[in-house]
C-alpha cells in the first residue's frame, strides 16, 4: 500500500516536473516536482528494503533454530 502510494506520488512529481518545465516555465514547480519524485522514490525503496530484510531475518531465524535443534538432538542421543 505504501509502495503503491509512493509510486503514485513519484508519478505526480514527474508530472509536476514536466508541467514546471514545459507548461508553466516555473523553476519553483520544477524543483517541487523533482523533490517530490525523489522523496516518493526513496520512501518506496526504503519500504521494499525493510521487507527484504524481514524476509532474510525470518530465513536466518529458521536456520539458526534448526542448527540449535540439531545440537539438542545430539545431546539427547548421547543421553546428556
Amino acid at each position: 500500500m505504501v509502495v503503491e502510494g509512493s509510486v503514485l506520488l513519484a508519478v505526480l512529481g514527474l508530472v509536476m516536473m514536466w508541467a514546471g518545465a514545459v507548461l508553466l516555465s516555473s523553476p519553483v514547480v520544477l524543483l517541487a516536482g523533482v523533490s517530490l519524485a525523489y522523496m516518493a522514490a526513496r520512501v518506496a525503496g526504503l519500504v521494499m528494503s525493510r521487507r527484504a530484510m524481514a524476509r532474510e531475518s525470518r530465513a536466518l531465524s529458521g536456520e539458526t533454530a534448526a542448527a540449535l535443534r540439531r545440537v539438542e538432538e545430539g545431546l539427547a542421543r548421547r543421553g546428556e
Partner: protein
Amino acid sequence: MTSDPMDVVAAEALLRRFEVEAAQPASVDAAWLRGWVRELRRLDAFAAGLVAGRGPSPGLGEVGLSAFGLILGIWDFGGISGAIGLGLGWVGLFLGLGAWVRAVRDAQAALALQHRVHRAATLLDALSQARP
C-alpha cells in the same frame, strides 16, 4: 551465562565471549552446549525483534513542520510567507524521510547481528558433532 536484559552492546559482548570459548575445545561439554543453545536462541530472538521493529519514525516535530508549512503555503499561495511556508513544509518532509532512513540503518545493523548469531549457531552445531 547471563539472563540480563538484552541490548546491542550486551549481545555483541556475549557473541565475542562465545567466539573466545568456542576456540578452546576443552570447554566444550554438555552443560556448555546447553547453555549456549539457550543464549543463542535468546540472541536470535532479540536480533529478529530489532529487524522487525518499527525503529525511529517521523516525529511530531517533522510532521508539525510539514503541516504548518503546508497550511501557510495554501493560506498565502503566491505570497512571500506562502513561499516560506512551502519551503518549511519541504524541509519537514525531508527531515521525516531522514527518520525513516535511520530506521532502515538500525534494521541493517540488527540483521548483521543476526548473521553473527547464525554463524555462532552453525559453529556450535559443528562443535557438538565433532565431540568424541
